[in-house]
Each structure stands twice: as structure tokens, then as C-alpha cells.
């Protein structure tokens, strides 16, 4: 690349890292205002640097790559610390730093009463650092660094209230489930090295471009499927989605930033990044689409029966991520990424709004203890309503544009996928508005005295609400068009009309059940019987995993590892070693009687033995 301007992309990473280091090391002594300023300032600087770099780069027809130093050299394999920006990552950069900044601002207000303020913002900045590495990485290994780093920060932040057992358990669950996905990702990287001899994305994708499309499972399909395993872990797809709902144990800004807007879209990002590989592996594409559909449906169903406001939105995140995967799987990469962007806006808004409600009610998260809050916290109500309309996919809000782009592409690929997607859209509208109605309409059922959140919290809400309204008109798909093969879908108004119809049906159903006939929901639940119990029990997936994996593992650990290996081998080995040492010590102790002349005898005997050996072996030389 001749004449590339040096944009110091590393500064984008450097600011949040610096913020994390300052707050993490000496933040304990700072005032809350200073900690908040450092945290917000570092992310905002990073955002400004992103904006500056992108405005310098202009059209970005070719990726802008900055190579800093050789990180690993092993034989022919060279891995560098290389950052790059292309059209795809530029969008992710803007979303991550932009939404990240808003959420940091909000978090300063939300966490005001919490212990460990400095710790929280140090983790949050560290998360931004790793997320930006993930986005900026020019090779898979560096991407993996960010990938693992965000996993670590996710773990730390889910377990932020580490004195509560459920938070620690949820953190461990997230970490371990993600490890399963990471295993697939590592294998994919090894396979990349073996087959292409490089981890550099440009090299790998150029090489992949030259290979033929695989009709059966070949190397590229295997790599794609392994990458998909990693993406399933990070982006909470079936069967690895179980960690995300539990991740709500963390503070709400964390749920908004990490478990809704940015980190969980990393899987989508990786698949979109590796589109050259996936395009050559139609089988893997099909798997992506099917996994996405199953996830979207299952999570939407579970979402209809949750009573914790954050859990509702968590399952909706899983479901929306499923949509993104459908988009990727049917080849509409740009639609999938478009949905990442709009989803970042409205889901961050929904979570922050939920946080505002929880804040207003002093920590109450149960929908059955809310109700009638419409007039008590109006700003929260209106912004949250905007988010709900946006996620339901009502024209002209953001969710409509991206969701319909995906659905149209799905219809062109396979009509049944469109129909499943449309039904899911109806379900989505239903459960999100169920939460809204239970929260804001009817009589107030709680005890706490609700109060509106401070400006530092509702200002980000308002900005995100505006983005949720207008975000659908961002030209994301046109911007991404050169990266991906174009599928022209006829702009079929019937299909769009049907999906809108389902959205309104969902909203109306929720309105009918929860506003017009409050209390009727229990009757419907009863008439559904076993089906409802299965949904409310989250299809017993956690229980099934417990029975199939966790319990046998625990049992095996206890019988084989604890009673067998630990007790007999380790303990036996340790006690054996101790016994031998003690016995030898007892022998040698006899020698050390304190009598100097006996020592002299030992020295003499030693000298005699030494001389004897020397003499018998033929002298000193």
C-alpha cells in the first residue's frame, strides 16, 4: 500500500487501556468524579480518534493496515501486532466506541451508590480495550487475544457482586461455556496455519478466494464450522446460549454494553470477517442459518415467560443474535452487520432503560412488582417505549430496516426461513411489549418509592432513543456492499407487510392480555399446561446440561479424581515422600551427635574412602 497515512491506530486501543490502568491501580484513592471522568474521558478520546481516523481514511476502498512489530516468529509462521481498518471494522469501531461512551456516561450515574466504583470502571475500560483489539486485529491470533480478553472482562463484570453466590456462579458459567466455543476457535486457527501457513487475514482470505467452492465437507468447511463453534459460544447461539441469560447477574450497564451491544456481536463479526471462507463452504453457511433460526425461536419463546425484566431482554438479545446469524447464513452479511448496529442502539437502550427502572425502584427487577410507572418515570417510559417499538420492527424505527433486510434475504434463500423469522418477530413484539405493559401500565404493585433517574443517566437514554428511531436510515448496507457479493432482492411489499402485520399482532396480543384484561395471563398459561411449563422452565436446557454434563463431571471428579487420584496418588505420593525423608533424616540424625571427635572420624573415613577410590581407579590422572 503506497502512501498510506500513519494514523496511529494504536491510540484507539491505548486510551481505554490507560484508563483501565490508572483506575485499576490508583483509582481506589480517587473521588468518584475523578474516576468517572477518567473512564468516560478515555473512551470518548478513543471514539474521537476513531472518528478522526475514519475521516482521514475517507472511502476505505482498500483496508488500511498498520504493522507495528513482529509478535511471534516460529519457523515460517510470522504473527505480527498488526491493526487494520476496513469498511466492516470501521462500522464496528464506531458502534463499540460510540455506544460504549454513552454507556460509560450512564454507568457513572447508575453505579453511584455502589461499592468498588473504581474497580468497575477499570474493568469496563479494560473491556473496551480488548473489544477494540478484537475489532482492529489484522490477524486471527490478535483477534483471539481480544476475544479472550473480552471473555475475561465479561467474567469479571458478571461476577462484580462477587459476595453473592449467584453472581460468582453466573460468571463461572459464562467463562466455562465460552471456553467450549474458544476451543473450536483455537482449532480453527491451527487448521488455518496448517492449510494456509499464515494467520494474517488478508493472506488467508486471498488464498481462500482462489479455492473452489466445497460441495462436501473439506478444509474450508471444517474451518468455517470450527469458527462457528467459537461464534456460538461468544454470541450465545444454540446450544451454547445458556450463559447469556445468567450473565444478567452483573450490573445493568454491563448487561447493556457487553451482553447486548458489543461483545456478544463478536461472533457475528468474526463470521462476517471470514466471509471469504464461509462463502466457499455452503454447508457451513446452511448450518449458520439453521442455528440462527433455532436460537431465534427458542429464545423468543422462553422470553415470553420470564418475569425478571433483565431476563426478558437477555433472551431477546439471544433471539436477535439468532436473527443476525440467519442473515449471515443466507449470505446477507451486510444485513447481518446492519442488524448488529441497530440492535446495539435499541438493545443498549432497552437495557439502560431497564436499569433506569431498576434504579428507580431501588433494585427491584421482578415485573410482577412493577406496573403503573408510566407517569412516575416518564423519560424512562418514553425512551424504553422507543426501544421496544424499534425491536418489534415497526416502520420507520431502526429494527424494522435491518430485520426486514434479513427476512427478505432469508425469503430469497428459503421461504420457510422467512416464515419462521416472521413468527419469531411476532413473538419478539409480544414479549417485549409484555414487559413494557407489565412495567408501565396498570396499577403499581411494588412497595419502593419510584423516582426518575438523574440527567447523567437519562441523557444517554435519549441519545440512544434518537438513534433507535433514525438508525435504520444509516447507509450501513451500501457502505458494506463492496465487501460482499450482492444479492438483489425484489423489495417485495407483501413480505414486508406480512412481517409488519406479525409485529402489530404481537404488540396487540400483549396489549390485550396485559392491559385490557390484566390477570388473564394466568388463565392462558393454565390452558397451555405442559407447553407453558416447558417454556417457563426455559425448556429445561440448564437442567439437561446439568444432568448430561455437569453432574457426571462432578461425580467423576469426586469418585475418580478426588477419591482415586487425589487421595491415593497425590496424597500417597506426598505422604510417601514425607515418610522417606523422615526415615532418612532419622538415620542421618544419629551421625550428628555433637561429639567433635566422631565428626573427625567421619572426615577420616571419608578421606580413606576417597583415597581408596582414587587408588583403585589408577590415580588422579
Amino acid at each position, binding site marked *: 500500500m503506497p502512501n498510506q497515512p500513519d494514523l496511529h491506530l494504536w491510540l484507539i486501543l491505548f486510551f481505554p487501556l490507560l484508563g483501565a490502568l490508572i483506575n485499576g491501580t490508583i483509582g481506589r484513592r480517587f473521588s468518584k468524579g475523578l474516576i468517572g471522568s477518567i473512564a468516560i474521558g478515555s473512551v470518548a478520546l478513543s471514539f474521537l480518534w476513531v472518528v478522526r481516523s475514519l475521516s482521514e481514511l475517507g472511502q476505505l476502498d482498500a483496508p488500511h493496515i498498520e504493522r507495528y512489530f513482529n509478535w511471534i516468529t516460529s519457523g515460517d509462521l510470522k504473527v505480527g501486532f498488526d491493526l487494520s481498518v476496513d469498511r466492516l471494522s470501521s462500522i464496528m469501531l464506531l458502534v463499540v466506541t460510540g455506544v460504549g461512551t454513552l454507556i460509560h456516561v450512564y454507568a457513572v450515574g447508575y453505579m453511584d451508590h455502589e461499592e468498588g466504583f473504581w474497580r468497575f470502571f477499570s474493568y469496563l475500560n479494560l473491556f473496551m480495550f480488548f473489544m477494540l483489539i478484537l475489532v482492529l486485529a489484522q490477524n486471527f491470533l490478535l483477534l483471539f487475544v481480544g476475544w479472550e480478553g473480552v471473555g475475561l472482562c465479561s467474567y469479571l463484570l458478571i461476577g462484580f457482586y462477587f459476595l453473592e453466590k449467584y453472581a460468582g456462579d453466573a460468571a463461572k458459567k459464562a467463562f466455562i461455556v465460552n471456553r467450549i466455543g474458544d476451543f473450536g476457535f483455537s482449532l480453527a486457527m491451527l487448521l488455518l496455519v496448517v492449510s494456509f501457513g499464515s494467520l494474517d487475514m488478508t493472506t488467508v482470505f486471498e488464498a481462500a478466494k482462489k479455492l473452489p467452492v466445497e460441495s462436501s465437507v473439506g478444509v474450508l468447511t471444517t474451518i468455517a464450522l470450527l469458527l462457528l463453534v467459537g461464534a456460538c459460544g461468544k454470541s450465545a447461539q444454540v446450544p451454547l446460549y445458556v450463559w447469556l441469560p445468567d450473565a444478567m447477574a452483573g450490573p445493568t450497564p454491563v448487561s447493556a454494553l457487553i451482553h447486548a451491544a458489543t461483545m456478544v456481536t463478536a461472533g457475528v463479526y468474526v463470521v462476517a470477517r471470514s466471509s471469504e471462507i464461509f462463502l466457499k463452504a455452503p454447508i457451513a453457511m446452511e448450518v449458520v442459518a439453521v442455528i440462527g433460526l433455532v436460537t431465534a425461536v427458542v429464545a423468543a419463546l422462553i422470553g415470553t415467560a420470564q418475569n425478571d425484566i433483565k431476563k426478558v431482554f437477555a433472551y431477546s438479545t439471544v433471539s436477535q443474535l439468532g436473527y443476525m446469524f440467519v442473515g449471515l447464513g443466507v449470505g446477507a452479511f451486510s444485513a447481518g452487520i446492519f442488524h448488529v448496529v441497530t440492535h446495539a442502539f435499541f438493545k443498549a437502550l432497552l437495557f439502560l432503560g431497564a436499569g433506569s427502572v431498576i434504579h428507580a425502584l431501588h433494585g427491584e427487577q421482578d415485573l410482577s412488582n412493577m406496573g403503573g410507572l408510566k407517569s412516575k418515570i416518564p423519560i424512562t417510559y418514553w425512551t424504553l417505549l422507543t426501544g421496544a417499538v424499534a425491536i418489534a420492527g415497526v416502520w420507520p424505527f431502526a429494527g424494522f430496516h435491518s430485520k426486514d433486510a434479513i427476512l427478505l434475504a432469508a425469503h430469497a434463500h428459503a421461504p420457510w426461513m422467512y416464515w419462521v423469522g416472521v413468527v419469531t418477530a411476532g413473538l419478539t413484539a409480544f414479549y417485549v411489549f409484555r414487559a413494557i405493559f407489565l412495567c408501565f401500565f396498570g396499577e403499581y404493585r411494588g412497595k419502593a418509592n419510584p423516582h426518575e433517574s438523574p440527567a447523567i443517566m437519562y441523557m444517554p437514554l435519549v441519545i440512544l432513543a434518537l438513534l433507535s428511531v433514525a438508525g435504520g436510515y444509516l447507509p450501513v448496507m451500501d457502505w458494506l456492499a463492496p465487501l460482499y457479493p450482492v444479492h438483489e432482492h425484489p423489495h417485495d411489499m407483501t413480505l414486508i407487510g406480512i412481517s409488519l402485520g406479525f409485529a402489530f399482532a404481537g404488540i396487540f396480543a400483549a396489549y390485550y392480555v396485559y392491559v385490557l384484561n390484566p390477570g388473564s395471563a394466568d388463565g392462558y398459561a393454565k390452558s397451555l399446561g405442559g407447553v407453558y411449563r416447558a417454556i417457563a422452565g426455559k425448556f429445561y436446557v440448564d437442567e439437561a446440561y446439568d444432568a448430561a454434563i455437569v453432574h457426571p463431571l462432578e461425580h467423576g471428579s469426586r469418585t475418580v479424581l478426588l477419591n482415586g487420584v487425589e487421595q491415593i496418588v497425590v496424597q500417597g505420593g506426598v505422604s510417601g515422600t514425607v515418610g522417606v525423608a523422615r526415615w532418612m533424616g532419622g538415620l542421618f540424625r544419629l551421625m550428628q551427635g*555433637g561429639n567433635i571427635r566422631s565428626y*573427625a572420624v567421619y572426615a577420616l573415613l571419608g578421606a580413606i574412602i576417597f583415597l581408596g577410590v582414587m587408588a583403585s581407579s589408577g590415580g588422579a590422572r
Partner: protein
Amino acid sequence: MPQLNAVPMSWYLILSAILFTLGVAGFLFRRNIITVFMSIELMLNAVNLSFVAFSHQLRQVDGQIFTFFVMVVAAAEAAVGLAIILTVFKNRRTLSIDEVSSLKN
């Protein structure tokens, strides 16, 4: 020194070994501190003898220099050692090495 040349090297070494063995035996079997002390001096001087003998045999001055060092150390040791022995005798009224064992245990 023709006379010295007449005495073979091995004789010196044998004499040195005899003296050293006597010193070791004295150190091990005598009870009197002063005798033990003298035995140590005997061993040192046995070594000195072999040093000098070798020095002469090999036409190298190193051994003789070493001997001087040993003598200096032995003199210092004698000064300190005799002072200790004197103090021990003043305090304990005995010179038997077996009874001066308060450091044991």
C-alpha cells in the same frame, strides 16, 4: 643440597604420613584439650613437611609459600586456642574434652 637429594622423595612422604596419622590418632583418642591441640599442630606440620618436600622436588616455590601461610595461621590459632583453653580451665577447673560439652543440645 646434595644430602637432601640423597634422601628419596617417598621417605619424606612416608614420614609426613606417619606424623599426620599420629596427629589424627592423638586428636581422636586423647582427652586432654592441650594434647588435642598439639595433635592438630602435628597434623599441620605433617602437611607442611610434604609441602616443602614437593616444593623442592618440583623446583617450585609455591609449596614453601604455602607453608608460611600455614605457619602463620597455626600461630594465630595457637594464640587464640591457648587463650580459650586458659579461660576454660579457669571456669571449669578441668581440661577433659568430654566435660566441656555445654554447646551440645
